[in-house]
């Protein structure tokens, strides 16, 4: 302490200069608009370097926006795909014009909220009645089924997730075409269970599971997952198949809403059949 005081005393000239000059500069920056602005600007240039680095990081998060654009483009392309059209072919002769009529319409929606860790999981998407979303439309993600629209409001819809034990999906094995019902057991969001596959057929680990296309909600052949475990249930004659989902519902940002243009027609027809039988 004594040394410090002696040091300051010896260099008092310099220290007094320092104090006085600091006071002058403070006055300068405090009371002169131009100097204050420039000073802040210069400070800004220095902080600019910091911002540049942080911008690079932030840009990464804007990939989300870029993703959105790609997803929209993708929906557009899906619309033009052959498998979005129902064939009207009724003869064996190949006719190449006006044979396809559009059956499946895809449009993109962003996931507003999502959950996977509850027992009954729901998603909310940012498209609603205004955009043409109706109840029980199918929802798929980039690689597989996500769920079915439950409730629709003007601008938003809730989706009952595949990760909801109340949701049964008609699914089949890709190679043998046997179909069953896919359901979540409420434990691990990575796995679902495929039931009602008769146990006389061969099921191998690694077999693909896809949508059956019997539901009028989803088109057929949408990949769902792979078989990781197939056990024969002792009590009845069905397999209990564990399916690893391709879809990571946890990291979902964009989904496709699927509209079946013929849904009412199919349902009316089926209802009529049930009523009259």
């Amino acid at each position, binding site marked *: 302490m004594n040394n410090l005081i002696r040091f300051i005393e010896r260099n*008092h*000239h*310099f220290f*007094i*200069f320092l104090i*006085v*000059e600091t*006071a*002058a*500069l*403070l*006055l*300068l*920056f*405090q*009371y*002169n608009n*131009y*100097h204050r602005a*420039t*000073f802040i600007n210069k400070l800004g240039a220095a902080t600019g370097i910091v911002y540049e680095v942080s911008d690079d990081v932030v840009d990464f998060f804007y990939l989300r926006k870029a993703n959105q654009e790609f997803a929209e483009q993708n929906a557009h392309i899906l619309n033009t795909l052959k498998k979005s059209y129902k064939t009207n072919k009724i003869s064996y002769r190949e006719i190449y014009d006006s044979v396809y009529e559009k059956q499946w319409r895809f449009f993109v929606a962003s996931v507003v909220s999502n959950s996977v860790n509850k027992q009954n999981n729901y998603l909310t998407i940012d498209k609603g009645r205004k955009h043409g979303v109706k109840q029980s439309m199918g929802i798929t993600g980039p690689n597989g089924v996500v769920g079915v629209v439950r409730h629709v409001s003007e601008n938003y819809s809730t989706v009952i997730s595949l990760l909801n034990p109340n949701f049964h999906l008609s699914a089949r094995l890709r190679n043998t075409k046997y179909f069953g019902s896919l359901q979540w057991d409420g434990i691990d969001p990575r796995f679902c269970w495929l039931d009602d596959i008769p146990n006389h057929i061969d099921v191998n680990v690694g077999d693909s599971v896809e949508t059956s296309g019997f539901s009028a909600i989803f088109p057929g052949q949408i990949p769902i997952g792979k078989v990781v475990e197939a056990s024969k249930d002792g009590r009845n004659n069905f397999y209990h198949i564990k399916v690893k989902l391709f879809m990571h519902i946890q990291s979902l940002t964009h989904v496709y809403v699927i509209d079946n243009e013929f849904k009412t027609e199919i349902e009316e027809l089926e209802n009529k059949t049930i009523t009259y039988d």
Partner: protein
Amino acid sequence: MIRLLTRNIVRFLVLVALQVLVLNNIQLSGYINPYFYILFILLMPFETPPWVGTVIGFLLGLSIDMFANTPGLHAASTAFIGFVRPYFLRYISPRDGYEPGSFPRVFYYGFNWFLKYTLLLVFVHHLILFFLEAFSFASFGHVIMRIIFSTLFSVSLIMMSQYLVFRK
């Protein structure tokens, strides 16, 4: 001693008045702003303690700032020359040092010595003043021009004052 103090106080007031009332209104061709008031710093006695010079420089600059409405600008530059003046004096001292009872004036140490002394301090003062005023190196050439022309003009004024007013 009292006489010295009174003379300096009067000189302080006169120089500030001259600067703010007359010279601040002179702006020749956008380049030349004469700053004559620093003559006060130049004429301070050799025996002035260094820190007093710094503080007086600050106060002198602040008084100019009050009138010019540029708080801190002149204070910063004048405080700086108040700070460096003792070092300059040591640097350009005659071989025998400064005689007691003498003052830094042409009368005592000759035209050459005083010109050197004035040029150095006025240039440093103007350098800091104009760069602080511009506060950027963007218009570097323009600022340098202003510094050089204003220095020449201020130095001429100060040298003239040595023959017209402070003859002894």
